[in-house]
């Protein structure tokens, strides 16, 4: 494999070739194409951020002409819908989005500088977990997954959530990533009963258990968790096979209840960085347009039809990369 040639920036000529020869308007997903006149588009022509904003296209054909002529460094489209997108006026609704960027995952088992196969895979696992919770707990189903070039976007278009405000969105993020340790003591007619999160197989405690499991299984000896010292980290690593088999009670005993509490506290506060919450609460965000080229890494931003089998190194590599000289 010529791995080194992947993930390097695309030249202006390569961009031109991509948009003129490879790109096709049909690759723009329907969930965008069908609402194209309600969305704002933004472009980055030189690689310094999307400065060309407030663009509007009445039909997919007009977008097509623009991309083929301008072959931008990057193309974006709003998660928001407007009655008057040209002025970002009369906001009507916005997709609920979750952005998992492989390079920002708080614990990665790779040690790469930006992104690589390993952390991209980890980003995918995290997104899958989030999507499961969106479906099973929140009952949301109109979900589209997009490979962004450096990670994944989960974009939710269910009518139930497209109108909700930032405050509710931020609560959803916290729920999905497991940012708070659930209660473990409940009062019941004057007595207290204790249920650790891992004995509750539903609701938020269950989500939390899943996220903690993921995190513990991805720690390594260099990981940094608040309040968790080297010795404790070592014990966690030594005993984590118990969690792999869901023997949580045993694991907690081996670690000791107080130290267990430290571990889950540390993980909960780290979990908030699993997704970029700023993106989720922003009602007017623009996101990379699926089908467009991520010129920094020479990858296609692509809608993912089947996340289980999706391999970015097969499905998101533009042709010109294969034809690059060593």
């Amino acid at each position: 494999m010529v791995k080194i040639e992947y993930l390097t920036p695309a030249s202006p000529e390569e961009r031109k070739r991509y948009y003129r020869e490879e790109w096709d308007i049909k690759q723009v997903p329907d969930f965008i194409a069908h609402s194209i006149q309600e969305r704002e588009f933004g472009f980055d022509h030189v690689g310094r951020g999307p400065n060309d904003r407030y663009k509007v296209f009445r039909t997919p054909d007009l977008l097509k002409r623009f991309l083929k002529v301008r072959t931008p460094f990057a193309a974006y489209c709003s998660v928001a819908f407007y009655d008057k997108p040209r002025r970002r006026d009369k906001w009507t609704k916005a997709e609920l989005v979750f952005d998992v960027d492989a390079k920002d995952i708080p614990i990665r088992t790779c040690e790469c500088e930006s992104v690589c196969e390993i952390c991209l895979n980890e980003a995918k696992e995290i997104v899958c977990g989030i999507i499961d919770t969106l479906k099973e707990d929140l009952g949301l189903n109109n979900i589209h997954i997009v490979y962004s070039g450096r990670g994944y976007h989960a974009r939710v278009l269910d009518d139930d959530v497209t109108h909700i405000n930032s405050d509710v969105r931020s609560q959803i993020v916290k729920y999905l990533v497991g940012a708070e340790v659930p209660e473990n003591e409940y009062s019941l007619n004057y007595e207290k009963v204790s249920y650790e999160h891992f004995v509750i197989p539903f609701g938020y405690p269950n989500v939390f258990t899943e996220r903690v499991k993921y995190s513990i299984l991805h720690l390594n000896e260099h990981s940094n968790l608040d309040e968790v010292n080297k010795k404790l980290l070592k014990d966690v690593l030594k005993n984590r096979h118990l969690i792999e088999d869901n023997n949580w009670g045993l694991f907690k005993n081996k670690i000791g209840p107080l130290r267990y509490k430290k571990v889950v506290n540390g993980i909960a506060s780290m979990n908030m960085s699993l997704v970029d919450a700023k993106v989720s609460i922003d009602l007017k965000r623009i996101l990379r347009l699926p089908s467009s080229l991520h010129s920094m890494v020479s990858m296609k931003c692509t809608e993912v039809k089947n996340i289980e089998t999706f391999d970015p190194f097969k499905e998101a590599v533009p042709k010109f990369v294969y034809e690059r000289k060593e």
Partner: protein
Amino acid sequence: MVSVAFINPLSDEGEIIVRELGDFGRVLSDNDDLMQIVTGSRSQEISDDSFIPRNYIDLAIKRIEWFVKKKNDRNFDNNQYEFLFNTEILKFDVIAFYLLCQAVGVKYGPNSRESRVMVESQGKLIEYRLEKLPKNIREELVTNILNSLISSTHIKWTFFEDLISTKKLKLQDLILDQGEIILDKDDFLERFSHKIHGRKPGKMYEALIGDRIKELVMIKMVMQNTENYILKVGEKSDREIEPNPILLELADKISDVLATSVRSYGIGGSYSGSVKASALNPKAFPPCVKKVMEGMKSGGRNDAIIMFLTPFISYARLYPSVFSENITKQISDIDPSLLIVQNEVLPLIFGAAERCTPPLFEDQPQDKVNLNAKLGFGMHQNPDLKNEGETIWYTPMSCEKVKIHLPSLCKPDENCKKIGNPLSYYNMMIWKVKKEAKTESATDNTE
């Protein structure tokens, strides 16, 4: 049977009571029935006339007073307010509730401190009232009210969007499945029994949902409806010419009660009362601020210093009670010569900026301008009185915002559970730290 309106005055039963009142003028005249119920309430303290409300308006004030004093006054005596928990007071209580909402709505609107206190006091009152009822009556009442507030057994979580948005309910506190909130026991058992191993599903239901969540949901819904009602009153009064003078007078009395509490009880319970501006005590900083003070080693140093630390340090030093006083000020209102800013505030911020890797401000003069802007001194290099007001003095970020914009900073400790803003943490702790220091120096003179 206890009337639903005792808990939810906005119910049909409550509305009937209001309609029966008839003449509005009566709310100010002495009411023997009311006084009789008050003095006849079990354990009611009657040694002083001032403990006994004489009319509807008095009763309304007592309702607010109870809440405010309970929260802030260390010498609070519940026996002075026993009548609030006597179910016989129902009719008077409902009227008092409506008077309060209308007074607050007309004069202050839904986004005021008065409105917040009114809504919170209603929530607390419900909690305590329920607690004093026998278990079976309490359950029945809660179920009845819930049924009238929620029409179907299958409730989507989005039904509670308002409650979640205003943080009255946390999504995590609800048990969700396929988008629905599980409240009913049979429904719970059907969905989850087969997944539960080694525990009794019935008991788990009682602990995790049971009466606790039902009550929580019910209380928060009544609170939300109270808030909505105040909003409605406010909107309607915008269209009216002359608000009723009785309501305006009541509104003034409500803010008097709040003001007195701030003055005389200070930081007892609500932590943010009349904290006076004084030299900073870094020992009382919350974990997030301590972390920035050590210097940021990785990303986000810009936001951490300028957006987060600068407002925190400046308000903690100059105007720590900003959230309870709720009055917008400029720095020069407190520090007219800007000496404190120059000698105490900026050095702390610059110190933290220097400890960052790489240090902030060294290469980016623009950052200094941004910092100045956050203090209210416009887009200039240094704070100067002649530019003050060109920008606004940013208030400190809430914990919620910190968690979103600078997630790596928030490392909550035990004390964080009680607050929603790092500044409140500071106000609470500065008081504790002082007390500890006092006891230490009293018991230990050897050092």
